[in-house]
């Protein structure tokens, strides 16, 4: 049988039943569009979380006081005093797999500059903190070793602080801001970073020498955290081991005794968040997959009904010389054309919906080419698969019975 003729036959049959063809297509369109849109939303949030995590720090390792006991009651790490300045110095001196180490203490209170005030925390750290947290000084400079040695009352501040304390746009460099009555001189302004994956403003930040915060603001000798940077991502677990050994030695912990500190890496946080977003993507993909199957069943249903409805037509075609294969091919070509057209429209709709979500709802969207290809392929296969059975049924009809069918 001539394939051009078969296409003509199928096209004429489709043109004669535009409504039926459209309804069949609708299932496919909805299926493909929802797969694409849902995967785009899922992948979009995943990538945006990943991006945010990678800007959180560079191969960051966080050391907190207190054991991370499973099941047991866990004490508030802030009330624990096991992390000392000597521990930080030991890590800095002995750990070979970290490139930067910074102590961290924080004090909360009210910042005042002139007639403006803003509630904030002051983080005490050293210069390494900038590298570890991927911060950059945009204006002015970071405080110096000498400032740390002398517990100088200097600080660098983030954009949110600048905007709130200096709303008139004057440069804050060299200005004095007061924190709980203690005057600090602003020596640098940080580049803005925006919100992190957990929705926290990373620009509402004030960094001062840790010595200043410990002595002048808190009058305490223990640290709330130690931050470090592993030399690279793959060395991160080994760096954790190394730090853990150093701290156990420092804390005189015997074999069998549990750690009295907790070490977390950036990878752990990112994989934790990733699991959530992967779960969400999978869930969305499942919903979309179901709609695709429903679309396929729609095709089968309509194809099946149309075989019954068109029994006379099939009988007539057979009586004028159509063979079983001709009828089979005609119905299959109809199914394929419906699926492909529906699939293409579905791709357009899916991308359109994704764009709409991106620009109207401001959600992160990421359309991967493979999801488009996959959903298109799946829909075409579903269409053909579900079109096959009714087509086979049509081809096996007995011409005499078919033509007499009422």
């Amino acid at each position, binding site marked *: 049988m001539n394939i051009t003729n078969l296409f003509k036959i199928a096209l004429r049959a489709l043109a*004669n039943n535009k409504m039926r063809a459209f309804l069949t297509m609708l299932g496919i369109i909805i299926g493909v569009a929802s797969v694409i849109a849902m995967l785009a939303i899922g992948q979009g949030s995943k990538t945006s979380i990943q991006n945010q995590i990678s800007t959180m720090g560079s191969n960051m390792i966080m050391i907190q006081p207190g054991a991370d006991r499973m099941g047991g009651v866990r004490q508030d790490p802030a009330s624990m005093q096991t992390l000392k300045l000597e521990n930080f110095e030991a890590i800095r001196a002995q750990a070979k797999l970290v490139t930067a180490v910074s102590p961290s203490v924080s004090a909360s209170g009210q910042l005042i500059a002139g007639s403006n005030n803003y509630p904030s925390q002051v983080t005490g750290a050293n210069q390494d903190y900038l590298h570890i947290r991927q911060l950059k000084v945009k204006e002015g400079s970071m405080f110096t070793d000498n400032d740390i040695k002398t517990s100088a009352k200097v600080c660098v501040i983030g954009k949110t602080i600048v905007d709130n304390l200096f709303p008139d746009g004057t440069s804050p460099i060299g200005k004095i801001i007061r924190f709980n009555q203690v005057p600090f001189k602003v020596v640098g302004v940080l580049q803005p970073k925006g919100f992190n994956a957990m929705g926290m403003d990373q620009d509402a930040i004030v960094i001062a020498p840790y010595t200043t915060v410990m002595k002048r603001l808190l009058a305490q000798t223990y640290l709330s955290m130690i931050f470090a940077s592993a030399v690279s991502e793959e060395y991160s677990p080994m760096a954790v081991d190394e730090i853990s050994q150093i701290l156990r030695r420092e804390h005189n912990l015997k074999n069998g005794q549990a750690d009295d500190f907790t070490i977390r890496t950036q990878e752990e946080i990112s994989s934790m968040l990733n699991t959530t977003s992967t779960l969400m993507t999978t869930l969305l993909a499942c919903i979309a997959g179901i709609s695709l199957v429903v679309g396929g069943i729609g095709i089968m249903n309509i194809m099946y009904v149309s075989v019954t409805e068109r029994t006379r037509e099939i009988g007539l075609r057979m009586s004028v010389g159509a063979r079983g294969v001709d009828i089979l091919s005609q119905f299959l070509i109809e199914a394929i054309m419906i699926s492909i057209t529906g699939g293409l429209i579905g791709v357009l709709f899916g991308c359109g919906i994704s764009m709409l979500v991106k620009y109207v709802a401001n959600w992160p969207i990421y359309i991967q080419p493979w999801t488009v290809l996959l959903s298109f392929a799946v829909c075409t296969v579903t269409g053909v698969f579900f079109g096959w059975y009714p087509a086979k049924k049509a081809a096996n009809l007995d011409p005499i019975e078919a033509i007499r069918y009422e």
Partner: protein
Amino acid sequence: MKKVIELDNIRRDFQVGEEVVHALRGVSFSITEGEFVTIMGTSGSGKSTLLNTLGCLDTPTKGEYYLDGISVRTMTKSERAVLRNRKIGFVFQNYNLLPKTTAVENVELPLMYNTAVSAKERRKRAIDALMAVGLGDRLEHKSNQMSGGQMQRVAIARALVNDPAVILADEATGNLDTRTSFEILVLFQKLHAEGRTIIFVTHNPDIARYSSRNIRLRDGKVIEDTYNTNIQSAAEQLAQLPKNDEE
């Protein structure tokens, strides 16, 4: 004269539950080129079964059937489909046109299944066939925009378009009023005059007067086979019919 159809002791049994229905019980006859044969008989005498056999839609349980010299009995379903496509034209009682499809496209249908015919030739032959049945001015009319008589003309054009060895009609005038029936008969007589072989199944005993031969069936057997030496003209009869007779 060349034998278009040769039947040798054709039997057709249908199994209905426990019972066996003998629709045809040994039918033998041959039809030569250019004959206009009417087949008559009471309801259930096996006329349609015989016509389906002649049209290669059905295979006999026993007996040999040669269409244009080709033995049909041993053919596969597909081979019979191709044979129908090349050698047979069907005209049905209820026209069986494709819905919402133009006259020309309906007539083109058999040629769509014949690869040897190009698109251009197909269209030309469809138009010629429609001209031959007097529908040259209705080429693009859709099947649902035509009267019963016009639809049957389209169906006849479709039966003609593949230049078949034989045209088979089952109650082709059964759904039409007297006047339109005569118009269709005039058309069949014209085709007969042009040398076509026609087999026409009918209930109406009057129609035998316009054919060249009449075969009568009863209980699946031929009980009468007569040649008509005095063929009447359907056109003359049509002229005598009152004009606006509805009946």
